[in-house]
């Protein structure tokens, strides 16, 4: 059974676990207990459901991509529209859940890390709504690259802290958030943005994102009267992918995760930790990492800040190891091309992260039969990427 994980030690097979300094151990135990209790509390579940429906706008639609389907001439292509969530990505599902949990636990302060700023904006949004103070750690380089999201977070009342340590990107923002949390652990809740980190985070975030797959299953059944044949999602840390895949793990459905191939795997400039990495421990979990032979972490590269992470959620490592999910890579160029195709064909501008999944899905669809269907998790909208795409297009002219 794939769905019984994690075990009591927070492990997905050999992956996951809890590799943190002693100071944080009590907080992780406290969090695990609080989350499990909350998940059995009707009132909490009702409030969460109410907020997802009336505040975030769930359920998100499953849109048939008719023009793209015709263009590729194979399987019917469906898009799970997480881009239509409040704040424009699946990140809000997790942020609402964790911030409500923080409130339930009596914590008044929330701290988070962010790369491109999507998770930071989602957490700042939830904190504004539920009345908690919010501190977001963001690498100095990302602060410069994503100034619009920095301003959004500030508008929402959050404090954005520019991280100067290490390579000044998501990895270091995560380090700094954990360090800060270790010092303020008694009254502060750490709201992690993906299915990474020490147990119980991969478990909590997955369960809060499962709604993506649960809705998809139902919607696809209504539209097609059966399960989809194949599902594709992009994987950085992997929260939208695990949320989409998890309800289908026991079904006869092909699941495909797409990692960022950056400039191409052969160049070494990528963020494909499952495809090319080796087993190690980062941010409290055992998983696949981009690292050197001495265990030093190698900075990843991707055009997409949301996929630019040197590790991957431990459950993905497990699903890759057991071959239940197949992981592929898509380069920057392929993702940009898919983004343009979807914009032109469907009038939907996807996030550059989601465009990695799209690019793979287009390839797959073309080789599938017309009576088959393929679902793509469109994890976010692409407004935030317009500047990046503009530069790429200007550069190629």
């Amino acid at each position: 059974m794939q769905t019984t994980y994690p075990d009591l030690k927070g492990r997905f097979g050999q992956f996951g676990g809890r590799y943190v300094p002693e100071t944080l151990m009590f907080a992780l135990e406290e969090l695990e207990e609080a989350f499990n209790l909350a998940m059995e509390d009707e009132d909490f579940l009702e409030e969460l459901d109410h907020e997802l429906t009336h505040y975030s706008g769930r359920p998100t639609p499953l849109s048939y991509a008719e023009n793209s389907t015709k263009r590729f001439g194979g399987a019917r292509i469906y898009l799970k529209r997480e881009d239509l969530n409040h704040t424009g990505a699946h990140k809000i599902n997790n942020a609402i859940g964790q911030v409500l949990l923080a409130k339930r636990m009596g914590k008044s302060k929330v701290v988070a890390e962010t790369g491109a700023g999507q998770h930071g904006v989602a957490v700042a949004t939830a904190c504004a709504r539920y009345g908690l103070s919010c501190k977001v750690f963001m690498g100095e380089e990302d602060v410069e690259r994503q100034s619009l999201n920095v301003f959004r977070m500030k508008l929402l009342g959050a404090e954005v802290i520019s991280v100067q340590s290490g390579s000044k990107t998501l990895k270091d923002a995560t380090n700094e958030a954990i360090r800060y949390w270790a010092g303020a652990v008694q009254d502060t809740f750490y709201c992690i943005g993906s299915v990474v980190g020490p147990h119980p985070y991969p478990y909590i975030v997955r369960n809060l994102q499962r709604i993506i797959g649960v809705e998809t299953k139902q919607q696809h059944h209504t539209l097609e009267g059966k399960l989809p044949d194949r599902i594709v999602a992009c994987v950085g840390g992997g929260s939208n992918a695990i949320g989409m895949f998890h309800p289908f793990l026991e079904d006869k459905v092909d699941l495909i995760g797409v990692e960022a191939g950056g400039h191409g795997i052969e160049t070494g400039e990528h963020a494909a930790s499952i495809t090319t990495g080796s087993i190690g421990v980062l941010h409290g979990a055992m998983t696949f990492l981009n690292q050197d032979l001495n265990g030093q972490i190698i900075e990843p590269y991707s055009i997409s800040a949301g996929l630019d992470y040197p590790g991957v959620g431990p459950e993905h490592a497990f699903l890759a190891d057991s071959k239940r999910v197949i992981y592929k890579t898509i380069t920057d160029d392929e993702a940009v091309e898919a983004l343009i195709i979807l914009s032109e064909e469907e009038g939907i501008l996807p996030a550059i992260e989601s465009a990695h999944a799209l690019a793979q899905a287009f390839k797959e669809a073309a080789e599938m039969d017309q009576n088959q269907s393929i679902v793509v998790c469109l994890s976010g909208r692409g407004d935030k990427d317009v500047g990046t795409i503009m530069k790429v297009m200007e550069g190629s002219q």
Partner: protein
Amino acid sequence: MSIRFENLKSKTKPLFIPFIMAGDPSPEITIELALLLQEEGADVLELGIPYSDPLADGPVIQESAKRAKGMTIKKAMQLVKEMRKRGLEIPVLIFTYFNPFLQLGRETFFQLAEENDVDGLLIPDLPFEESESLRQRCMEEQISYISLVAPTTSPERLYQIAQESQGFLYCVSSLGVTGERKDFHPETKRLLREAKSFTDLPVALGFGISSRQQFVEVGKVCDGVIIGSSIIRKVHQLYTECPDSWDVAFRAYLSSLTKEEASVN
């Protein structure tokens, strides 16, 4: 437990336990620094291994790790052999994050420990639950596996960890990361008192200790004082200013920190 750790029992308390980063500012200076620290009264040496993502460390040790980039566990352990040749007798423990240790491999570590006269191992991000088989293996190899407890450690958990501890028990004085501080966590005294009641091993306090006054106060309530960031900061400063005679000024600084006669109070 290694013989060198056994010998700690007869030493005058508090034990002085400095932390230095292997390779900062250079491998040669690391060796000289270790010997100098022994001469100035260090009882145990914690030898840090640089890591790209040191979760438990504050800015001073992070910067030190950057300067020491390229140093590995293996190379650091080989430095210990050189230190021993030049007269280092105190126990040396390797302080490394788990990932570099994992990549080196357990068997290689124990082999290197034997070859290079290393006495102990401390992995700050490997909590009690995850370290059981490694602790067992350390016992067999007569390597002291140093366990940490924090002000947030519950009494039940503290008891468990203390019972299983080897070498000495490392108490963390504050929440958060390593680095110099004015005050300790209010639970620190409780922590030390309980820790001492649960083990016969020396109980040492670390994180944040940087002044003579703190050294004296801490020395009254526990058996050992661990000092990292302020030593690293001082060596870096003195070595940068004066690479030829940094050691003279550093000796004076150490005396003012750890020795009664030089007390500034």
